[in-house]
């Protein structure tokens, strides 16, 4: 679940525009269980594996999000160009990124269902940047998202850029997803203790 308001830090993974859900998690991998703790890891392994190699990890390319043989990525923040997450409604897409270790995305625009799934499922935070930053940030740069001041800081290049406030979804993001939000507002009964 996403953390409210704390700065988010980590290495950047940079992508171009129109990264669709088939590139985020190719359809052949949608068969794994998201609940089974072992099977779930496949999503981390295959996250962004559908991106053509030359466009994966810009500007150089040929950098996989998750290294061969691993199920978690060394990168934590995706920086992408327009229309991130277009394509299908599969929630496996933001889930796969979360399982790979992604905490947030910075893009000038998102496809609606991806955005909604990220927020309602509490997988990661989709921040909107004011400008397209995909050509200014390099894969591997150390980033910090300052949520209080709506800034993206590039610690490697010593630059900073404004990001947009979350707006009407902020309450759901900070609650950690639609269920937590609904519980706080009495729309869904408080959870019975889960016995697993």
């Amino acid at each position, binding site marked *: 679940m996403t953390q409210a308001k704390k700065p988010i830090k980590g290495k950047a993974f940079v992508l171009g525009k*129109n990264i*669709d859900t*088939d*590139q985020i998690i*190719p*359809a*052949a991998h*949608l*068969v*794994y*269980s*998201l*609940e089974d703790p072992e*099977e779930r890891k496949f999503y981390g392994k295959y996250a962004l594996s*559908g*991106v*053509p190699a030359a466009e994966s990890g810009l500007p150089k390319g040929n950098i996989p999000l998750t290294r061969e043989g691993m199920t978690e990525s060394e990168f934590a923040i995706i920086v992408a160009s*327009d*229309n991130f997450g*277009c*394509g*299908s*409604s*599969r*929630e*496996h897409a*933001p889930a796969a990124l979360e399982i790979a270790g992604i905490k947030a995305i910075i893009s000038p*625009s*998102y*496809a*609606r*269902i991806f955005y*909604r*799934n990220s927020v*309602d*499922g*509490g997988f990661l935070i989709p921040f909107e940047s004011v400008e397209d930053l995909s050509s200014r940030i390099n894969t591997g740069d150390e980033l910090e998202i300052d949520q209080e001041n709506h800034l993206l800081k590039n610690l490697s290049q010593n630059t900073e850029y404004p990001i947009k406030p979350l707006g*009407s979804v902020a309450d759901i993001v900070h609650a950690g*997803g*639609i*269920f937590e939000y*609904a519980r706080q507002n009495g*729309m*869904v009964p408080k*959870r*019975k203790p*889960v016995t697993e």
Partner: protein
Amino acid sequence: MGMTLTEKILANHSGRDRVSPGDNVWVDVDVLMTHDVCGPPAIGIFKHQFGEDARVWDKEKLVIIPDHYIFTTDKYANRNVDILRAFAADQDLPYFYDVGTDSYKGVCHVALPEEGFTRPGEVLFGTDSHTCTAGAFGQFATGIGNTDAAFIMGTGKLWVKVPETMRFVFEGKKLPPYLMAKDIILQIIGDIGTDGATYRAMEFAGPGIKAFTMEDRMTLTNMAIEAGGKNGVVEPDEITEEYVRSRTNHPYTKVYSDPDAKYYSEHYYNIEEMVPMVAKPHSPDNKATVEEVEGTWLNRAYIGSCTGGKLSDFKAAAEILHGNKVKLDTYIVPATTEIARGLETETHFGIPLIEIFREAGCSIGNASCAACLGGPADTFGRLNSDEVCISSTNRNYPGRMGSKQAQVYLASPYSVAASAVTGVITDPRVFIQETVI
């Protein structure tokens, strides 16, 4: 000031007199649809959040249609159908269209109308982005994720941000004989881009809309998502009513846009002047006229999916394939079992469509999504290497139909069939004019 059709439905379902674009409202859901890819995780979240023995909010309103990974030996895919089966039995769901039984249907977006679940004025959510197809029936329909679906299963409600509406006005009386709704939506997506309607409703209207059958309208609204749209919608009329009434007695209330409704933008198209279109690899907005890419080398043709696998799509293909042999590996996949039966009973010059396809040398698959989304390696028609395919489906992003190396041109069933016969991308006017003479 008036409201658009989309705004009115959302107002009606959130207990308000009016809503405006940008408002966040909680709506009551009339139908929730899910399938074999997103159903199992949605069910998992539902149980986790509401308890192992929780009941769904209204079993008459939950429809489960397995369709994506059906005819495969992939063990994980088959397990997903088992999860749906167990849930349907446990919850005693009347509307589960189980694989391997007579009730099996195939592609959910075509099955929903066939089974009478798409009704004017209603709100329908589905765990699939092409749920927007149902807007053809004058309802609000859109795709959601698993968490949202689980939320609806427990509460019957979901929050929606009221979208602005873009209006696409069709002028002209008749579609030219070589033109299909697919050409028109490819033109529109090419004009506005894959994010041209993001967060917005796309309303298809104008006098020309009367020229569109229900299946044609479904092709338009189906691809609203390829322009980023939240929903696509057509006002209900006698064509809608005739279809819906032939499928269900369920009551509904028709809703129309007010004459003084406010639109984000208006776009005019004269359907009589439009031409066959393709989307080149690797994006649905990478438009060209078929003429511009004529002669492009191909080695695969595919007719199927919720966009281009309806009965009228196969009738169109049969017009061209009749009496011809295909030069490409050509795959025919009816969207639903009802359409598959239609291939046997519908005729062209007295010959069943299925005979025409067999004679032409096509491979015919079982009703399902099949290679529209690639799927497991043994999926019928899947592009497994660097094929160049012309397809009546809706997406051509890298790897969508299987391999990242493959290239896909999206086109109408007429254009796909014409290209299958010649072996290169071919304008259907070559054949259609022949037929007329």
